[in-house]
């Protein structure tokens, strides 16, 4: 699905189904340097089970035109515009990593539009290592290598993908390399600069779930647990044997957890 926002064409994956205006809406937000393909194992799954799925590529990512947004706040406002442009009044928002920060900020700034929130592989803040940001600015392929390598748990590192024949590592690198040059650095700086995680978490009154990966070396579990504790009434789910790229590493387990959230939100 293509939607025009601020004179830019935005690509929104609907999981291969024509969106049903009456169906509950799920908004999936990808992480730094990623695209809608982060939701390979969620978009089609939920779209074929009665939900209306929106998994956009943020501006300047994947199949969307435009330039990358530079702050988490701007991304949250952009999501609000996207939801309105698609004609929806309320969505359950699910964010992975940077997308999780955007989801929290969306809930803080526009609470009336958020029915529930799912946060995957996230902490209250993502204080990106300055060396990684420098690498993304000066030697992007090296930054892709570092992020993809450290972003996966044991199975991902050994190319043991749930989809037969697929490689996490090289798929991850190609997705990142498919974005315009410089995109990753803009995203990482936006993450590093975002300091309102605690305020955003405390403001969430909607049903919420934090899903963490046992082997996440980018947003370690301990930090994710602090996030869950900061959100009133949030449910915490920990999935073992997976790294930061949890949605593709353990798609089935993530989907099971999200379903429990969606039952709560009525989504």
């Amino acid at each position: 699905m293509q939607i025009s926002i601020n004179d830019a064409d935005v690509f929104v994956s609907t999981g291969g189904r024509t969106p049903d205006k009456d169906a509950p809406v799920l908004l999936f937000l990808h992480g730094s340097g990623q695209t809608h393909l982060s939701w390979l194992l969620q978009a089609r799954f939920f779209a074929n089970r009665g939900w209306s799925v929106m998994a956009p590529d943020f501006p300047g990512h994947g199949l969307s035109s435009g330039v990358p947004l530079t702050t988490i706040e701007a991304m949250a406002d952009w999501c609000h515009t996207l939801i309105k442009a698609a004609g929806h009044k309320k969505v359950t928002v699910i964010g992975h990593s940077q997308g999780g920060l955007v989801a929290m900020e969306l809930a803080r700034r526009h609470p009336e539009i958020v029915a529930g929130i799912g946060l995957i592989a996230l902490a209250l803040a993502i204080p990106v290592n300055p060396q990684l940001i420098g690498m993304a600015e000066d030697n992007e392929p090296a930054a892709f290598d570092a992020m993809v390598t450290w972003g996966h748990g044991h199975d991902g590192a050994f190319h043991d993908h749930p989809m037969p024949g697929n490689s996490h590592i090289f798929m991850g690198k190609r997705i990142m390399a498919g974005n315009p040059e410089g995109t990753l650095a803009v995203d990482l700086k936006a993450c590093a600069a975002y300091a309102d995680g605690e305020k955003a978490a405390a403001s969430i009154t909607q049903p919420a779930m934090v899903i963490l990966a046992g082997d996440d070396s980018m947003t370690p579990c301990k930090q994710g647990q602090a996030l869950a504790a900061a959100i009133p009434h949030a449910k915490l789910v920990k999935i073992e044997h997976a790294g930061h790229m949890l949605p593709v590493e353990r798609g089935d387990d993530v989907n099971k957890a999200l379903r429990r959230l969606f039952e709560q939100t009525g989504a």
Partner: protein
Amino acid sequence: MSKSFGFNTLGLHAGYTPDDRHGSRAVPIHQTTSYMFNDTEHAAALYNLEVGGHLYTRISNPTIGVLENRMAALEEGVAAVAVATGMSAVFLSILALTSQGDHIVASSQMYGGNINLLEHTMSRFGVTTSFVDPTDHDAIAAAIKPNTKMVFGEVIGNPGLDVMDVAAVAKVAHAAGVPVVIDATLNTPYLMKPLKHGANIVIHSLTKWIGGHGIAMGGVIVDGGNFDWGQNDRFPTLTQPHFAFQGVNLWEEFGPAAFAMRVRSEGMYNIGPTLSPTNAFHILQGIETLGMRMDRHMANTAELVAFLKDHDGVAWVNHPSLPDHSCHDVAMRQMPKGAGSIVTMGIKGGRMASQAFIESVELASHLANVGDARTLVIHPGSTTHSHISADAMKAAGLTDDLIRISVGLEDINDIKADFNRAIKIAQKKTSAKGS
């Protein structure tokens, strides 16, 4: 521990995690046709490409899946699909991109089976091919038409042993919006990874060096995930709604893995050249030692080439490692560890002498294969390439006296002794007939 692994480590481990229930360290053979579904929803999800897993072995299988993941890892591709043979890998790759009225630009210097498939089989279904010299990049550019869907060639031509400059060919093809499909059987990912040089799809006959034992047929298609299928309207099989799976747009929903998904979702569903799980297991045993075997193949090849070059009974020797080979520089740049273990030569005395040599070897095996652990010899003009036209033979660099040698892993002194003896017998027989 580092999470980034070297070639030999991936060859032993990639694609497989011992299962919790049995803990089998070696990859188990899942010799089954089908798989239990958890419930009807699980079955529907598998049928609709929503979740990972297996539903029927024609489409995918856990043992074959390990092989696919391992080959994707070794070639640095986003996804791989393993099939019954190398030829079926070539066919399914063509099927994934072409329809009636489409066109292919292909190397004129390829394995006879590839030439025949394009010239005689695909043409019957309206897919035509222009064959060009793979070292003539201007000719490749000139041959590309608006309906061209791929540039196809071999890194090391069989049996001419010309070497394609993959980066240069990719530059020409990509400028025209066309992907490069490479049959990399003769080099294996140990000697060269074509995707790193700009190729987009890599094909192997796994039957050859990758298996290495000569006991199991197999093929694989590796998707580099490095081609923008949406850059033009040339690739509707990937960018338009699929005829099945509720009209999924593979480029939008699977991105870099769109090509591999088309191969599996059409080639394996509608044609079904399925690799047997047992053969996948055998090939995996070969991959575990691919790196060390290739080192030995290269060492033996270097010594045999030097031996033949100095032999009085040998009329000529051809291998890309030789400084006077027309592709020597390209070969050394692309394959610094070695330019493969196929060597060609002619015995003084012409075709009769070459045939007499083949009939006189005792250690080497006279058969139609390459890449076996054992040394193999054949006369392509009367066997592997006998079904192609005289013009195509000439274009493929095939001379009447050409002997193709696939250098094996035996002790090199034994190979040299066998060849020395056979060369002498061949010359004796030829001179006797000539007198």
